[in-house]
């Protein structure tokens, strides 16, 4: 029996003075190294759940423990984010005036790297996502798929144990989507990172070992699937 990397118990989160119940009692355990997809209608609470796991927000009620950190009680959430998780968003959210390699360096400033070490590590990651020759290119000169690759490299640069991807292929065509997913799955397998993907695409959801469906802030279905 493996120990869960994520343990969530009766987690609740509301917005607008309690009028919007984004999460309404979530119970969830995710094993280390797993690949999980989260599906559900728009507004069902998928992003909110992902944000909770990544400590971008604090719960109103319930408990959440990730990689052994109790996120309800933790003070330096930014520290946790910088070590444990890597985010990938639907929009790449790269900094437009910085080159690919400089964008990948961004998460490393909070650690004690020298300039040289930062550059070296960023180039390694760029190589890993197959964009070695685009190191000095700015995001505006990259294709959508290439931008998302840079964003993936940025998410991985601090060696996180969990990757949280919120509709990472939401704005890409199906062929590019497939490439990006192959890359994510490949990295998940090679580096043994836990991968959680929020998606609207049921075909993508099926690729995961486990599929979770959210509705009105609650988990209504959770099935393990072989692949």
């Amino acid at each position, binding site marked *: 029996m493996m120990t869960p990397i994520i343990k969530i118990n009766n987690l609740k989160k509301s917005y607008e003075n309690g009028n919007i119940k984004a999460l309404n009692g979530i119970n969830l355990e995710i094993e280390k190294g797993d690949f999980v997809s989260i599906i559900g209608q728009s507004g069902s609470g998928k992003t*909110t759940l992902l*944000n909770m796991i*990544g400590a*971008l*927000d604090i719960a109103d009620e319930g408990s959440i423990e990730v990689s052994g950190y109790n996120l309800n009680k933790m003070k*330096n959430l*930014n*520290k946790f*984010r*910088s*070590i444990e998780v*890597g*985010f990938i*968003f639907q929009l790449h*959210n790269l*900094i*437009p*005036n*910085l080159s690919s390699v*400089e964008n990948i*360096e*961004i*998460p490393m*400033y*909070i650690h004690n790297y020298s*300039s040289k070490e*930062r*550059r070296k590590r960023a180039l390694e990651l760029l190589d890993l996502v197959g964009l070695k020759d685009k190191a000095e290119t700015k995001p505006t000169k990259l294709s959508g798929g290439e931008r998302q690759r840079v964003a993936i490299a*940025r*998410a991985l640069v*601090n060696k996180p144990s969990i990757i949280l991807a919120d509709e990472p292929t939401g704005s890409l065509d199906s062929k590019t989507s497939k490439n990006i997913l192959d890359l994510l799955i490949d990295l998940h397998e090679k580096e043994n990172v836990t991968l959680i993907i929020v998606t609207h695409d049921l075909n993508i959801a099926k690729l995961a070992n486990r599929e979770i469906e959210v509705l009105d802030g609650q988990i209504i279905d959770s099935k393990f699937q072989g692949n």
Partner: protein
Amino acid sequence: MSFITLIVKNTFRNKVRSLLTIVGIAIGIATIISLGLLSNGLTSSFDKTIHSGDSDFSILSKQQNETGDNPFGTSTLSEDWLNKIKGISGVKDAKGVYLVVLLVENKPMSLGGISYDDLTLKDNTIINGRNIANNADNEVIIGKLASETLNKSVDDEINIGDERFKVVGIFESGNSNQDDSIYTLINSVWKIKKNEGVLSLISVYIEKGADVKEVTKDIENKYGENISTITSVSDVKRIADLRNMITGVSWAISLLAIIIGGIGMINTMIMIVFERTREIGVLKAVGWSRTDILRMILGESLVLTLFSAIIGSIIGVIVVEALVSAGITGSIFHPVFTLETFVQGFIAAILVGLFGGLYPALKASKLTPTEALRYE
């Protein structure tokens, strides 16, 4: 890429806006620098006037007449004070000086009337022509700057008051205040001002081995009711008042420049934070702390103001030089370039950067990551 490089790159992301902000603040800094340079010049002009002729100290009358046409007022002493001062033990010599500012060929000029003995001190600064001959009360020597301003050279004639004089020599002492003046025998100035026997100040030379402090104390004890001794410019109340006033006005204008610059800075930085809300959300998502964000935004505003300080210093110097060469500053203002003035400019710039950047930086650092990321 170092953190500093990141900050500098961020600062110039929107080049036009950054440039406009820099120019706006640079004008404020230029104001501070040029005011500083000019008021420095004023002070040091006075200082050098008092020590003209290398005397040990000077004596002024205590009776002030505020309608003066020279920086010392028309506080005047009569000639018989010379003998009284010479009678003090330790005093080697005392020379009368009569300084006035008047229009020469329609330009305000300072005219110094000094004794023949004092004039000879200028022998080795004569760069053209000769010094005034003894008792030649229709001759003047003019400083190099004054000769340029008046466009006069050796053997030219100039009108001062109702009198006609001949320029017999041009001198250059290196002290811009003196070099922008005209010197002649004291009798000639008395004639021009129709004010026989009047002195603006007395320069006192002391015996070798005598102590300036002792001698001035003796004089103050004996004649303190009527005259005062001054060893530096800060002793002169009238000048001290004027200088304080100028310093006060400079400070007020500088403060205003800082406040206006700071408001412009707040505006620019708020825009920047607003535009980069999503990006700040991403920075938080990848682990940046509040302090990291604060450092970045404050750093960006400091970079803007440091560029402003450099450009402002350059503009300030150009403006001052232009004012001087246009003759607007008159004969008593001469810019004196001190490191201090530029340091003040840079401190002002840093204050604008901190003052203007702090609020937007705090605002940015307090954004919650989820809200920043939801921002469209």
